[in-house]
């Protein structure tokens, strides 16, 4: 949801996409750590023995078999990594009949959100802007550079589609806990989906250099129950 002090791992996940990312990461890391251990052990033992060795084996300059092995074996490991990676890639890419759509537009330096599926009494779509809360206005418990004055409110267990674009320079809509990161590029509409599985507040930050206040345009997503969401919707 939020980064934690001295954290060395992913933020807690709230969507299947992010679950998938964590699982794939652990999966890949297993092979990578194995390879690193192998290489550093080889390096260590070779250097240790070699430092005491007065007579070098000068004629040891090639070996067909070992070279084939160290070409084929990494290729196989890569194959083993690639398949789950592709599966996750295509799974995350699917956006099938989302229940609601939220439009996020990046501007220097704030976000504008539109709920195009809903209209208010005067017949306009619901839209609002979201600014970071400046340091001197922070209340107790609010997080500097993460908390915003308004936030995206959305229901849990609902297929939500985010449509992301920008109005001036390139921004990036990223919420780590939801496994979302997509460029907000002027002139383009990008879409990502999220199925938030638990209630909570999820923070993200703009992830593409967008100028002076790049660090001060966070994203705050509040996931609430459907009932609360409807109440919130009525207030808009």
């Amino acid at each position, binding site marked *: 949801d*939020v*980064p934690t*002090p001295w*954290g*060395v791992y*992913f933020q807690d996940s709230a969507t299947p*996409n992010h679950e*998938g990312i964590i699982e*794939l*990461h652990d999966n*890949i890391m297993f092979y990578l750590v194995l390879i690193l251990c192998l290489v*550093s052990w*080889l*390096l260590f033992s*070779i250097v240790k023995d*070699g*430092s005491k*060795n007065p007579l*070098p*084996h*000068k*004629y*040891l*300059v*090639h*070996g067909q078999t070992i070279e084939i092995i*160290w*070409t084929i074996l990494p290729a196989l490991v*890569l194959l083993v*990594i*690639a398949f789950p*990676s*592709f599966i996750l*890639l*295509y799974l995350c890419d699917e956006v099938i009949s989302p229940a609601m759509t939220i439009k996020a537009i990046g501007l220097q330096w704030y976000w504008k959100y539109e709920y195009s599926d809903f209209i208010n009494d005067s017949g306009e779509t619901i839209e609002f802007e979201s600014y970071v809360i400046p340091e001197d206005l922070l209340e107790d418990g609010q*997080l*500097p550079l*993460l908390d915003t004055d308004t936030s995206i409110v959305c229901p849990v267990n609902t297929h939500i589609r985010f449509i992301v674009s920008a109005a001036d*320079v*390139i921004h*990036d809509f*990223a919420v*780590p806990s939801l*496994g979302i990161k*997509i*460029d907000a*590029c002027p*002139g*383009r509409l990008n879409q990502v989906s999220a199925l938030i599985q638990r209630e909570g507040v999820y*923070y*993200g*930050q703009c*992830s593409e*250099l*967008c*100028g002076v*206040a*790049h*660090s*001060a345009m966070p994203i705050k997503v509040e996931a609430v129950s459907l009932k609360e969401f409807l109440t919130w919707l009525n207030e808009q």
Partner: protein
Amino acid sequence: MYIQRWLYSTNAKDIAILYFIFAIFSGVIGSTMSLIIRLELAAPGNQILHGNHQLFNVLVVGHALLMIFFLVMPGLVGGFGNYMLPLLIGASDMSFARLNNISFWLLPPALVCLVASTLIESWAGTGWTIYPPLSGIQAHSSPSVDLGIFAIHLTSISSLLGAINFIATSYNMRTNGMSYSKMPLFVWAIIITAVMLLLSLPVLTAGVTMLLMDRNFNTSFFEVAGGGDPVLYQHLFWFFGHPEVYILIVPGFGIISHIVSTYSKKPVFGEISMVYAMASIAFLGFLVWSHHMYIVGLDADTRAYFTSSTMVIAVPTGIKIFSWLATLYGGSIRLAVPMLYAIAFLFLFTIGGLTGVALANASLDVAFHDTYYVVGHFHYVLSMGAIFSLFAGYYYWSPQILGLYFNERLAQIQFWLIFVGANVIFMPMHFLGLQGMPRRIPDYPDAYAGWNYVSSIGSVIAIISLALFIYIIYDQLINGLTNKIDNKSVVYSKAPDFVESNTIFANNSIKSASIEFLLNSPPAIHSFNTPAVQS
């Protein structure tokens, strides 16, 4: 006299020395910028820049451009390439001596352009990638960005001319018997680098020129309002940008190969396969550019292609690492400073390569893109790959180049300081990245404070090591001669092994895979009176 020798120089060795001086000069500026960046990020809130976030962005741009275009490329390619490539192939100079002169002398004006861009109006805080529309006329209206583009133009011309020169030299000026299969690996590394430069730089030049037109002459290549597309720029930039990172590391591969072989008294294991590995890394480097753009909204099939082609690069890289290990295996290893750097390179470059495999996955990249994980990754392969090989090359060849020995003990202290420092800086960045801290932010939420603080401490350690390095050069130049007398540390680093480590064994006559150490030290202006013969 001095003007004759240095300003009008057409001698590859003198030009190489100029390249070194230039590289060290820019390297000092770039490192200082990195220190300022780390000090600003040492704790949340405004530290030393008084909340001037544009200045922070400018420092980030400056650090990247200086390190890439003004330190590593002049140092590894211009410096070691110019000095060592002719010697290693038995040529007395580069093929086009005057071209060589202009390709160096384009660099100082480039540096002037870059520095000037930080002096006028509101500077260029665009990231070294200068993505439009942020670098466009609306978001950055000052001519700073134009000056930055000119700086890139000038370095590009410089590198392009240098690349042509290297290719022509190694094609035409190899000595008798020096067939391609017998060429030392560093020469191969420089040729491959030169080919990559030749093919990728024009694309960058085209890209930034289009940007310049957009800014000043009302074109709209990247202007959405005029029907352009900012993503086109990213494709053009990274089509250059990815080969560029291999341009930075491949000469390092060559240097490390020489050092590993010399200090384990064995020829390089699988020399031909090393050449093919470098060549395929270079070739594949042109096919993977969009892995820098996984999140711009590419089609899933495109991302799948770039994921697979990127992962394929791990195979030739693995071949190189294993071949170096096999070179060490069974060798008689001497842990002199260049060798320490080479071994550290092997270990740390492996770490960087492995995080690279993780980043290659488009699905994982959603979590990692534009976070500190990426920063950690590319500093492991460049700071601890390219820069370590630069240090290694300096300690390996500088006694031969200068005829003066450095203080071995100080150099070992310098190595351990930078080894510890660099790891303390960059290892925590992986943790920050996993936690989701975005790149290029001048201020961050409080939770990231811990690891950032550790990282900043590492930065101070590394800077101390760099200061020590400057002193080592000073000491080498001033007191180096006395080091030649029976000093234990000199005897230790003195280099009788080169000759016996190389292919003396086939016949009895003296010949070696690399002949630079058979010449007198420092090498004469016109290195060879009669052509050397490679059997």
